[in-house]
């Protein structure tokens, strides 16, 4: 199978998580991605995510996650010789990706107009915190603030009974936003192919949050109120979380109550309730909901999680245990569908971009590059001779390993 983006050349001049992860997704889909780094390297190489230094044998999992399937080029783009290399790389590329702030782009002459003048068929993609317009356009952003806090996600996930705000996990906003940008780039490539004209693509973390909270925001814009959260007690007992005997949470999610009423209750041995509430209207009163909830709670509360899973599965119920990462790693469906790619380091698995083509799982063709790992190789492809490359490295314009 040919991957859909095979033959596409991507120049990824971005740092941290959000925007590099979009280039990683394009790499997963077959593109040839060159990660361009300034001489001091991607700031993400040294960042400590939420205080976690989860490295093993000097292997940084976050850097790897955001930079697999790329080649590395280390370059001083401000040196005149470096600028020339950069412009050649822009000509070479189909796609240019950046998270630089406007003031950096102005200083480095990497604005869309600058690069589209060099390569008029370029897809020029920017990822940023608060959008490309308005006073926030000049400000930096991280997902913890621009997506999680400012975008409203933390607020709507936190229930009044919680002791504190729900905390974001590392990269939880960056990673979907990276996929959004990657999708926009793919659409941009179709546009270039059909019209022959370059295109500028923009995604921001705040816009990503707005999309993710679409129902909440659309509702608020229509009514001027916050979408009420239905109180626990008013929810159908078939769509509530229950705690098992061993302290785990199981979420029933049989939204189509009419269809699942009998099989859901029978799965838990509550056949008498099927007969007690024969017609849908009889299940809608507060007292019937409370009664059924109490009975389910009693059953699930008395069973080990394994047993609950066994019974619900046997009756084709829609449900899930609130899984831990260890469980997700071991999940049969995750394994069977190849959602985690085997890494060249045999004890590491890396989440694949969440799209598959022609029934085949995506793969890691190369691990995240060391700073400048492929500088010589990439420069040779840009037409530089061995001597010229040697001079660029000696002059400190290019880093190479």
């Amino acid at each position, binding site marked *: 199978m040919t991957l859909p983006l095979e033959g596409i050349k991507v120049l990824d001049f971005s740092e941290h998580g959000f925007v590099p992860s979009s280039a990683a997704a394009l790499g997963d889909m077959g593109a040839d991605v060159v990660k361009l780094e300034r001489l001091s390297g991607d700031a993400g190489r040294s960042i400590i*995510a939420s205080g976690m230094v*989860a490295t093993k044998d000097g292997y940084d999992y976050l850097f790897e996650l955001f930079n697999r399937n790329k080649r590395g080029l280390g370059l001083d783009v401000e040196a005149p010789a470096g600028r020339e290399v950069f412009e050649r790389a822009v000509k070479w590329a189909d796609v240019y990706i950046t998270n630089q702030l406007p003031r950096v782009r102005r200083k480095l002459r990497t604005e869309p107009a600058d690069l589209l003048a060099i390569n008029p068929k370029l897809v020029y993609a920017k990822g940023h915190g608060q959008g490309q317009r308005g006073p926030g356009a000049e400000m930096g952003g991280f997902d913890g603030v621009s997506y999680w806090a400012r975008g409203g996600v933390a607020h709507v996930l936190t229930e009044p009974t919680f002791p504190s705000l729900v905390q974001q996990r*590392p990269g939880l906003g960056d990673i979907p936003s990276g996929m959004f940008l990657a999708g926009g780039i793919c659409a941009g490539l179709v546009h270039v192919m059909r019209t022959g004209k370059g295109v500028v693509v923009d995604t921001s973390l705040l816009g990503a949050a707005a999309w993710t909270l*679409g*129902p909440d*925001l659309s509702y608020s814009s229509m009514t001027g109120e916050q979408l009420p959260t239905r109180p626990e007690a008013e929810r159908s007992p078939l769509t509530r979380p229950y705690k098992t005997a061993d302290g785990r949470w199981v979420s029933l*999610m049989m939204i189509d109550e009419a269809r699942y009423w009998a099989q859901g209750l029978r799965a838990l041995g509550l056949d008498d309730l099927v007969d007690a509430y024969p017609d849908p209207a009889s299940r809608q009163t507060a007292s019937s909901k409370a009664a059924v909830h109490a009975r389910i709670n009693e059953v699930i509360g008395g069973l080990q999680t394994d047993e609950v899973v066994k019974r619900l599965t046997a009756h084709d119920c829609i449900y899930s245990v609130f899984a831990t990462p260890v469980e997700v*790693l071991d999940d049969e469906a995750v394994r069977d569908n190849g959602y985690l790619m085997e890494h060249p380091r045999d004890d590491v698995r890396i989440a694949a971009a*969440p799209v598959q083509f022609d029934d085949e799982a995506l793969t890691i063709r190369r691990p995240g590059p060391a700073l400048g790992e492929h500088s010589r190789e990439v420069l040779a492809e840009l037409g530089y001779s061995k001597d010229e490359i040697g001079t660029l490295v000696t002059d400190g314009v290019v880093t190479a390993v």
Partner: protein
Amino acid sequence: MQGVKVLEVAAWTFVPAAGAVLADWGADVIKVEHPETGDPQRGLSVGAVGARGVGGVSFIMEQPNRGKRSIGLDFTSDDGRALLLKLAAECDVFLTNLLPGSLERARLTVEDLRAVNPKIIYARGTGYGVRGPEANMGGFDGASYFSRGGVAGMLHDPAAPWPPMQRPAFGDIVGGFAIASGIAAALYKREKTGEPSVVDVSLLGLAAWQISPDLVATGLLGEANLPRFTTDEMPNPLVNYYRTSDDRYVQLMFLQADKLWPDACRLMDKPEWKDDPRFATGPARFENRVELISEMRKVFEQKTVAEWRAILSTAQGVWAVVQTPQEVLDDVQTVANGYMRPVRTLDGEHTYDLVMNPVQFDETPPDLVRAPDAGQHTDELLLELGMDYDEIVELKVAGVIN
């Protein structure tokens, strides 16, 4: 995507949201709905609220279906299936959330579609993937993505009475975008090589992508899940929530803490902390983080959120207020960037806002068109297929279309 035609046989939000993104990008998206029942989402009640709002518009129907045309068509009948295939012959993309078993029963497999249109891109959204013992199990984002995918488990504060509930369609909307992205990649490949693709996205795979830092670190470090810190003991006190005097929260995100510490002391009006040996260096702040967080809480609790917005407006580091949906709507950046776009009700009497998809091209937010009523464009679409009114009436009488 102008000129791209998409045939959508899908219900609820996950897969329809992909159609909405493609419509935002300019594609002509034809939504196929059952002639009598329509998309079941049309009757869905969310958060104790059904079709409520301006002009009786269902916001949960509207958000993932704007910009489409709707045809009411029963493809389980022979005539209906023939019509569906006729439509498919004219389309570039077939988009569905039917499970593999249902697609086989309806004879709408990849092979069936390719028999009438060898170049059609075939895109599926599923709960648990198209392989493995659960390939034919239905899923919803609340279960397949939020719970089983580990998202809720990771967001669950052990001190909270239960895990957070996901917001309506929280996983569906992100998953729909992933499908649209895959379709765009496949369209590019088809333009270039002539080969069509099958595109698959599952809610479980989406979760794996979304919590990938947790998954990868867990895989790397073995049995233990990644450490979680409570807000009392966050390893970098400059990356934490702080409560204000009016019971709101400010999120600081000063990742480069050593560089930003002097500025943080200035913002908090605590110049004496700058060189205080307890807090002056990263290791010292980590060592004394419980004490520092407790001190910083006292500082933040002295002023209102409005006062903190003013003070932090000069900060060198990145920060934000934890905003409500209404504040997100009113946010100067939301407005300046057109993240909410107005549409008109069918009668033209009212306007309301929908959320734009999170990608803009050529620095211009797209215009949106409201979601269709069930079967609103049936006649128009059949006329485009070359049928005449007599044939259309006949199909209506037979209940194949509406």
